[in-house]
């Protein structure tokens, strides 16, 4: 049991955050606070995705050629070498040979070797896809928050209150034909 919990430790704060957000949405009568709860709920879902993306021992998912200072002449060659390096990571020595083969002169060959060495370390990448998905989800969340708050502003203009009970009372008086 303890082992299961410790393996999945990251999910515990996420679940707490999620339930807090959902509870705030349900329990509060204040429309702005409800939006805060909703944001919290959405954020916790983003965290699930981000937690899944982490690969233990994985490097940031960046291609090696982007590490160097700009792209000198012959970058195409060295990057080609680095690409091979990513593919054949087990055979470090082979990579160095290949990289020096591909480099057009000594200087570039050295650079290619350094790329290849970087690449050899970075055999394992963290998964970038969930991050991209969550960027989209964050945008959606921001838009939802904006629309929600705009509605709250309009509700306040129309009713003069943002408390749920008072709003229900005002609507009920309309439905029963009473005075507002």
């Amino acid at each position, binding site marked *: 049991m303890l082992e299961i919990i410790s393996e999945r430790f990251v999910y515990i704060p996420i679940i707490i955050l999620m339930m807090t957000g959902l509870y705030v949405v349900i329990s509060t009568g204040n*429309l702005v606070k*409800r939006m805060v709860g*909703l944001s919290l*709920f959405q954020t916790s*879902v983003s965290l699930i995705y981000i937690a899944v993306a982490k690969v233990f021992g994985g490097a940031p998912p960046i291609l090696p050629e982007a590490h160097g200072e700009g792209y000198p002449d012959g970058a195409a060659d060295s990057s080609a070498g680095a690409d091979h390096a990513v593919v054949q990571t087990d055979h470090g020595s082979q990579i160095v040979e290949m990289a020096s083969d591909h480099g057009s002169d000594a200087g570039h060959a050295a650079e290619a070797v350094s790329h290849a060495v970087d690449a050899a370390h970075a055999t394992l990448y963290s998964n970038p896809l969930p991050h991209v998905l969550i960027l989209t989800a964050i945008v959606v969340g921001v838009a*939802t928050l904006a629309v929600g708050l705009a*509605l*709250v502003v*309009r*509700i306040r203009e129309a009713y003069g209150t943002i408390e749920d009970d008072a709003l229900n009372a005002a609507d009920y008086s309309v439905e029963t034909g009473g005075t507002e």
Partner: protein
Amino acid sequence: MIDFIASLTPDAIIRHAPVLIVVLPLILAPIAAIIPSGRAGWSISLIGALFVGWMALILFGQVAEHGVIEYAMGGWSAPLGIVYRVDALNLPVLALIGTIGLLCVFYALPTVSDEIDSKQQPLFYSAFLICFAGLLGVTITGDAFNVFVFVEISSLATYALIAMGAGKDRRALTASYNYLILGTIGATFFVIGVGFLYMATGTLNMADMARILAENGHTRVTQAAFAFIVVGLGLKAAMFPLHVWLPNAYANAPSFVTAFLASTATKVAFYALIRFIYGVYHPEDAHFVMMAFTWVFAVVGVIGMLFASVQAVFQTDPRRLLAYSSVAQVGYMMLGLGLGNALGLAAALLHLVNHAIMKGTLFMALGAFGLKFGIRRISDLNGLGRTMPAAAIAFTVAGISLVGVPLTIGFTSKWYLILAVLERGWWWAVAAVIISSLLALAYIARMLAAIWMEDSPQRDGKPVARTRAPWMVLAPMSLLAFANVYFFFNADPLVSMAQRAAAAVMVGH
């Protein structure tokens, strides 16, 4: 006709039709927003709707020719890229959205200029186009996360559209706010479910997910994902008991918005549910999906159709009444889905299309009454049969179709539903369908009695002269009302379409 239209269309457009159908309304939306004229906004919406109709026709021809069309977004093929996929299941839904959208745009010009402040009209049409594009996107995409994005695109536009009803009744604002809260919770549940599926399969492409799940079998993660997706999409589809947002939203939105949403939005969510259940999970391999069919969809569908019908009987606002009736109709579709056989799924899909036609007519007719008279209570309908006969006849035809009287499409879909239920031998469900139809008779009869039996409305002591809604309201309304009868006598196109769709998803794996 399709061949003729396709022969006039450039090849590039035919090749990119699956993406253009979504992207063009999306591109037109900001254009409609920046031109400060309601009429220009309307023209742009009309262009968008016509274009979507055109693309839907071309897709019809393409699917008839090739079977399934897959469009790889940006040339990145599946499973890495996003794929748009048109097959026998979503083609009818696309055609439905396109047709209803086009008819509703005609209907929009008179009602929107009546109900919406002229300064807000361009933004209103812009929001409509975004909603339109979002619904089409949900229908056409083959990528699970893409479904979420389009659901949110259409929902955010819907919140704005419903809130536009505030010009007439401020309750539209609270209705929209409540829908926003619930809709966002639903969409977030859905995205949790998609996340779990991604954890289990490592892919977002639905077909690829199905393949990997079939190989690896189901775990608790995929079961949890199923529960989250059903709750999330069920909320969007107004599946009982997740329907609480719907009555207020439909009752207070502008009448054009109600007519459009009632016949498309919940239908699209229901389609997405079918797509996830059959396109990702294989019900015959997954015991828990079969359990869900019986204990969630069938049972909840039956309870929903009875409960919501009873609630509808006691409503005083005609639009709220019809909104509760919509919840009951979703119950029929859920029952059809819950049967778990091809007949049931075909009946559910047939009812999906038929209900869109009926509710579209009913809400359009109510909107037509609303142009001349404020309709907030059933008693406001008194005597309108003499004052506005055309709209009253359309309302009557669609009303009896909703009850399921023979000679209307309501009868056709209930007939097929009952046949499918009998195949499973669920007598209690047959009884529930019949009781719910009788309740429908009760609430429709209340409104029809007010329209035809009561004295016509009085103004200054004498009856109001006979009046007529603008032809742009009458034409789409009459067309839909005619469809209510026409597709009873010529049921074959719709029925065979539903059966083909059901067969395609059932055999697809």
